[in-house]
């Protein structure tokens, strides 16, 4: 998956597991950029009585590099605080929750937002309410109104939301981790079987999202709203991260934390740590910053999955199997951005420093009518790898790229294998996965109705 449980250590720590990061020019408000970082992946909606929440002891960060040095010039920080209204009940709520201040809602989370620019930290909001989890028709009968009330407009111009949403990521997990299978291509697999139809297990699961919408001029290096796609000032590097205090002291049932914040999870490009970095290096990758990614460059240059595809699908990828050069196409897409002159009319280059960040060219307007989930590869420059929209078909894009579809961008002598056209997620998510307004991820599934049988 994009980064759900992708590394040994963070798979044991769901509340700090940065599962997806999105960044795009807001389609309904193109003077702003929306950034979303998701945590607490693979939530089964009925998971009570202690329904899912953020970690009170976790520092959640969204980083923006606006001058191409792979270091953050801007960091938005989110901290959470859980409150109980009634300690003498086992219930999450003691009646229907009609509002964010309803006394029936027992266990709540509030959060603070601050921004760090240079050496200074500024508080932007305190005691902002999260919505409850979506319990069911008796407990949260008007869920969308609760979620709408949890969209906070800050005096400084940002809009924020933090709470449970529908997980927008889609992938046939069961197949892909069964030796790289794609059910539609079962007959061509090394261990063949009859062709099947891809299944999306995430379509009934929820996630916790931290979303922020920021006016573009508050993010660019010169305070401008760029209109020149070719200009370096138009490109932002964006990633999310979660940190914990270095020391934890347990004393009876109480836990105390001490020491500096230590990063335990991060995410820029989807699937980077998941399928590019080998398992022995995944925890280290989570602990370091994009500026340190030169140590992981070798995994991009010679990706393991690129060597596996010709083995798993014998005879289907002869050109890929014979290609031994470093993958300059993947290096550009994932580590430096695409320079001017590679894709006509587009660039998101941030300089030669190899660093895993989403790179968003904010001068590219959002595609409002019929956006293509295959993004830039399909001619829709508002989609991945120009940032990442919630509905972008990351699995198809990255599988095709690793299979060789993007090599000709940097090596015109290469001809992609015909099988590249067959490599796909084969999934089309339902419309309920997303919404057209902030925070763009759809209403979370409620626990009463999911699963429905």
């Amino acid at each position, binding site marked *: 998956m994009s980064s759900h449980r992708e590394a040994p250590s963070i798979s044991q720590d769901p509340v700090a597991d940065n599962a997806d990061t999105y960044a795009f020019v807001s389609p309904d408000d193109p003077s702003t950029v929306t950034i979303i970082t998701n945590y607490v992946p693979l939530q089964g909606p009925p998971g009570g009585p202690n329904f899912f929440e953020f970690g009170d002891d976790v520092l959640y960060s969204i980083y923006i590099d606006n001058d191409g040095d792979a270091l953050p010039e801007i960091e938005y920080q989110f901290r959470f605080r859980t409150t109980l209204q009634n300690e003498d009940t086992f219930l999450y709520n003691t009646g229907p929750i009609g509002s964010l201040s309803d006394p029936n809602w027992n266990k709540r989370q509030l959060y603070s937002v601050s921004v760090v620019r240079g050496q200074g930290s500024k508080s932007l909001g305190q005691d902002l309410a999260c919505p409850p989890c979506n319990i069911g028709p008796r407990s949260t009968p008007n869920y969308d109104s609760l979620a709408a009330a949890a969209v906070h407009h800050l005096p400084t111009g940002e809009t924020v939301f933090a709470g449970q949403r529908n997980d927008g990521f889609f992938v046939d997990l069961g197949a892909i981790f069964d030796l790289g299978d794609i059910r539609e291509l079962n007959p061509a697999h090394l261990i063949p079987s009859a062709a099947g139809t891809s299944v999306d297990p995430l379509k009934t699961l929820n996630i916790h999202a931290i979303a922020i919408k920021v006016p573009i001029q508050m993010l660019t290096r010169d305070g401008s709203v760029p209109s020149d796609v070719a200009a370096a000032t138009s490109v932002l590097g964006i990633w999310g991260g979660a940190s914990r*205090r*270095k*020391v934890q*002291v347990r*004393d009876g049932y*109480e836990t*105390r934390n*001490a*020491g*500096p*914040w230590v990063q335990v999870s991060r995410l820029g490009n989807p699937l980077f740590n998941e399928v590019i970095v080998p398992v022995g290096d995944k925890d280290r990758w989570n602990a370091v910053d994009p500026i340190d990614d030169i140590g992981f460059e070798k995994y991009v240059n010679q990706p393991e999955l690129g060597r596996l595809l010709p083995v798993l699908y014998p005879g289907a990828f002869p050109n890929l199997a014979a290609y031994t050069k470093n993958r300059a196409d993947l290096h550009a897409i994932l580590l430096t951005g695409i320079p001017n002159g590679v894709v006509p009319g587009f660039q998101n280059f941030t300089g030669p420093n190899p660093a895993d960040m989403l790179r968003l060219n904010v001068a590219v307007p959002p595609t409002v009518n019929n956006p293509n989930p295959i993004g830039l590869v399909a001619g829709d420059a508002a989609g991945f790898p120009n940032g990442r929209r919630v509905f972008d078909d990351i699995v198809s894009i990255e599988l095709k790229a690793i299979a060789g579809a993007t090599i000709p961008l940097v090596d015109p002598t290469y001809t992609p294998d015909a099988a590249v056209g067959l490599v796909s997620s084969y999934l089309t998510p339902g419309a309920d996965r997303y919404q057209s307004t902030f925070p763009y991820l759809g209403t979370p599934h409620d626990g009463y109705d999911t699963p429905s049988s």
Partner: protein
Amino acid sequence: MERLSRRSFVKIAGAATGAAALAAAPPIARAAVEEGAERTNPTARVPEEPVVAYVRDAKRGEVTVTSGTAEHTYRDRVLVKRLLRAAGRKDVS
């Protein structure tokens, strides 16, 4: 290199928390503690922001101290030896 004597370290730790927590790796067991140290039961809860010291490298006499979100490592062979003895380590010279 930051400078901090054992005496001033203990003083700062105590002042910061009211009860400094000195956490060495293994639990205290049959501690052959130095004269002046008295083994006792805890009389207070762990402070909200405990000061924690741990031996990073016994041979070099390095001890790391965290306080709030700060962390510093000191070379203090006397303090390290004392912590190791309190921890019941037999490899203390």
